[in-house]
C-alpha cells in the first residue's frame, strides 16, 4: 500500500506497484509535482512526509482516543470541550486546515456525520475517508433519510432514540464518540479500543459487543 522508496530525492518518480495503464490523472499528478518541485514550492521530502504522517492516522488511532475517553471522564470532557487540545495531549496534531468536534452518543441520541457538499472528514485523526463516505449516494440521502441509510449499514436505531445528523458545512470536522458497549467492565484501554471501528466514529456502525 505505501511505498517507502518514494523518499529517494534523486528519483522523484516511482511507479505505482499495481500498475495498469496510466490514466491522464496519474500523468497530470506527476507533471504537477515535478513543476512544483522545480519551482521550489514543494519538495519531495515534504510530500513524502505528509504521506508518512497520513499512514499513522487511521481508525486504530481514533479507537485509542475513544477508549481513553471511556476510561477517563476528565479526558472525555476535555475531548468534547476542546477537541484539538485534548488530541494534542495525546500527541495527535490535527494541523491547520480545520477544527475538530466530538459529538457523544447517548441512549437518547445517535449521531451520524456526513458532508453533503464535498466530503469533509477528520482525516488527521481517522485517516482517509472510505469511498462510500465520498459518494453522492451517501451524501445525498443521509440528511434526508438517515434511518434508511443506517439500515443499509446494518444499524437499526429505535424510534425512542433521536438520530441526529451533522452536515459538515464549515471548517469543522465531526467525530462520533460511540457508547461503551456493556459487558466491558474492567477492560483495559487496549481491549476497549478493539470494540471501536472506523464506522462507529462516523455513526454508521455501533461498537462491537463485548
Amino acid at each position, binding site marked *: 500500500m505505501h511505498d517507502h522508496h518514494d523518499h529517494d530525492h534523486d528519483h522523484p518518480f516511482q511507479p505505482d506497484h499495481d500498475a495498469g495503464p496510466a490514466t491522464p490523472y496519474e500523468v497530470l499528478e506527476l507533471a504537477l509535482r515535478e513543476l512544483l518541485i522545480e519551482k521550489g514550492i514543494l519538495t519531495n521530502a515534504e510530500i513524502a512526509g505528509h504521506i508518512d504522517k497520513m499512514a499513522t492516522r487511521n481508525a486504530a488511532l481514533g479507537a485509542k482516543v475513544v477508549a481513553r475517553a471511556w476510561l477517563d471522564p476528565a479526558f472525555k470532557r476535555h475531548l468534547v470541550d476542546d477537541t484539538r487540545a485534548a488530541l494534542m495531549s495525546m500527541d495527535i496534531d490535527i494541523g*491547520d486546515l480545520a477544527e475538530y468536534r466530538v459529538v457523544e452518543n447517548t441512549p437518547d441520541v445517535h449521531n451520524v456525520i456526513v458532508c*453533503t457538499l464535498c466530503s469533509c472528514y477528520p482525516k488527521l485523526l481517522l485517516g482517509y475517508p472510505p469511498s462510500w463516505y465520498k459518494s453522492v449516494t451517501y451524501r445525498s440521502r443521509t440528511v434526508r433519510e438517515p*434511518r434508511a441509510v443506517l439500515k443499509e449499514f446494518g444499524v437499526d436505531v429505535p*424510534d425512542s432514540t433521536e*438520530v441526529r445528523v451533522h*452536515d459538515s458545512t*464549515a471548517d*469543522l470536522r465531526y467525530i462520533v464518540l460511540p457508547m461503551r458497549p456493556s459487558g466491558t467492565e474492567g477492560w483495559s484501554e487496549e481491549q476497549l479500543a478493539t470494540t471501536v471501528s472506523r464506522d462507529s466514529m462516523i455513526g454508521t456502525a455501533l461498537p462491537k459487543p463485548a
Partner: protein
Amino acid sequence: MSAETSRPPKFRLGDHVRVDDREPLGHCRAPHFIRGRTGTVVTIQGAFRDPERLAYHRPGLPALTLYKVRFDQCVLWPDYSGPERDRLELDIYENWLEPAPTT
C-alpha cells in the same frame, strides 16, 4: 483558523433563525436544501474567515461568526418517515442567517 472579528455575534444560543434563500454568487456553504428553512442556534462556534471570499483569494475579513443550527427533520422533509425527535444540524455563517419571522 478561528479569527478575530470586529463584530459581536448577532445571535445567541436558543435563537430561532432562518437561513436566507438568496441565490448564491459563486461558492457557497449553505446547502440548497437548508435555504429558507428555520432552525435554532445550539452552538456558537467562533469567528472564521468567510469561505465565499477565500474561494476567490480574498482575505474573507472581517471574520464571520459561525453558528451550529438545529432543524427538525419532520419539518425539513415533508415525507420524513422517522420520529419527530430526529434532528439535523449544520454549521452556518452569520451572513446567511436572519431572525426567524415571528408569525
